[in-house]
């Protein structure tokens, strides 16, 4: 699926846990991705798929041959305190190359202290951390030869020492590195709910012209927390009215996909002015 621009609506490819008896269980039923007309791309989480062969690799190969794909990652630890692991960057690059992925969505956070922490933490937004993170984003972009999309993630804490809010931090990173912004609306809704800030104001402070990927869903909290889910869906028109119509939107399941299509049709462009 080379030379395809990522646009329209996509689905996150659901992971299948690694277990020797996977084959005996629901695998076969799960093997074929549904192919509704609305689906234009798939999103592949590196932490769930990288390095897997066998039926996992086969399923991934089938999906990425059929649709253009976006690489979702939370493993580069862009704001991490240790060394930037160039081996991880290289492995991610090889994975993207193998599946002809041209778009990388990387969590804006830190997820290791030289070895993985298996979660993504917020970067203390100091001037030093800003430069530190920008330098690492530049290193990743140089190594991979493509712009990184930095993606906002859900947080449980506002780190101490912060000299600016996350929207300002993102804005500065874009200025310093030329990276793109990937907007996770569910994470934004969660954070605004948890820390009591105005999500629309956050959007206004972002360089919306640099947003070239939008995600909806992808949160455990959102799937069980109906009001939060509604907040995320209410934010969607505001986001869509500020980004280019061709910006791709990724959702978690088919019901969401249908709902997204309806929502996109109803959204007047430029309803809100940034």
């Amino acid at each position, binding site marked *: 699926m080379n030379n395809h621009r990522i646009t329209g609506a996509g689905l996150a490819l659901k992971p299948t*846990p*690694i*277990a*020797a*008896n*996977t*084959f*005996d269980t629901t695998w076969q039923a799960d093997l074929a991705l549904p192919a509704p007309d609305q689906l234009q791309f798939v999103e592949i989480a*590196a*932490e*769930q798929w*990288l*390095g*897997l*062969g*066998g*039926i*996992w*690799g*086969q399923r991934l190969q089938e999906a990425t041959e059929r649709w253009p794909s976006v690489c979702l990652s939370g*493993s580069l630890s862009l704001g*991490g*305190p*240790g060394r930037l*692991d160039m*081996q*991880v960057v290289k*492995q991610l690059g090889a994975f993207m190359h193998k599946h002809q992925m041209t778009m990388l969505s990387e969590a804006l956070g*830190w*997820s*290791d*202290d030289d*070895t*993985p*922490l*298996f*979660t993504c*933490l917020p*970067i*203390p937004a*100091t001037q*030093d*951390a800003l430069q*530190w993170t920008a330098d690492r984003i530049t290193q990743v972009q140089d190594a991979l030869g493509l712009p990184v999309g930095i993606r906002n993630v859900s947080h*449980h*804490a506002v*780190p*101490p*020492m912060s000299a600016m809010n996350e929207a300002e931090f993102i804005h500065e990173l874009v200025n310093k590195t030329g990276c793109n912004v990937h907007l996770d609306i569910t994470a934004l809704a969660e954070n605004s709910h948890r820390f009591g800030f105005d999500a629309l104001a956050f959007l206004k402070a972002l360089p919306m012209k640099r947003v070239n990927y939008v995600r909806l869903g992808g949160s455990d909290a959102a799937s069980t927390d109906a009001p939060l889910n509604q907040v995320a869906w209410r934010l969607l028109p505001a986001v869509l009215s500020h980004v280019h119509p061709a910006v791709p939107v990724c959702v978690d399941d088919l019901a969401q996909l249908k709902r997204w299509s309806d929502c996109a049709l109803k959204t007047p462009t430029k309803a809100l002015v940034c």
Partner: protein
Amino acid sequence: MLNDFREFQFTFARHLRDPHTAPLPRGVSAEQAAAYERAMFKNLCDVLNPAFPMTRGLLGEWAWRATVRYFLRDAPAQTPWPRIVLREFARYLRESPVTRDLPAWLNDVSHFEWLKGAVATSALVLPEAGVEVDVTADLMTHIVVMNPTYVEVSYDWPVDIIDLDHRPDEMQTTYVSVLRDVSGAVQVVPSNVFRAQLLALFNDGITGSQAFQAMAAWLQHPNPEDLLSYGPDLLAQYQREGVILGGKIAA
């Protein structure tokens, strides 16, 4: 000297890995730190739990969770990719001092579980690129092509019969062949020393006849022709099991 923010991050990470010993850094509440600990634990268990159902069941939930927490504390996984995490966890179960007091047979069980998952997800393809296989070839006269995912392993304990209701009393050397068949399913086949030795010979790219002659010499068999007469049936059996893919087509 580290910048302040990095100092904070390292301190925070140490606390998250070992909350009872390493202090919480200033500026983070205990509740916030606990939320991250839960997230780390859950994300790691999402990978580990499905891959080690028997080990987890035999350990019991309390010991399993404790082991996962020690693994987070000691941080042996160098990269976050699932196969690496599973491999390092299996190694940790066998080698870490914190698991020293577990029953010896548990080492074999966890290794066996890890091995099956590793074979299932191996990036090797069948047959290997560039190798042409004739599945109908006479294996006695053709170079035998092995399944590249096939692994021969021996355990001190009877891993194939241990489960939640059968914990072993006695050691019993157990040979198994583990492989992924052409449909992608993992197969475990009981094995033995003779079979393991014979199958290892095919790594050198030889015919069935050559392999049985070598075995006859190794066993100092008084009548090699007798041993060779078993060849076609045994090789056909190995091919049915998926250990042997077929005969090599000459380039």
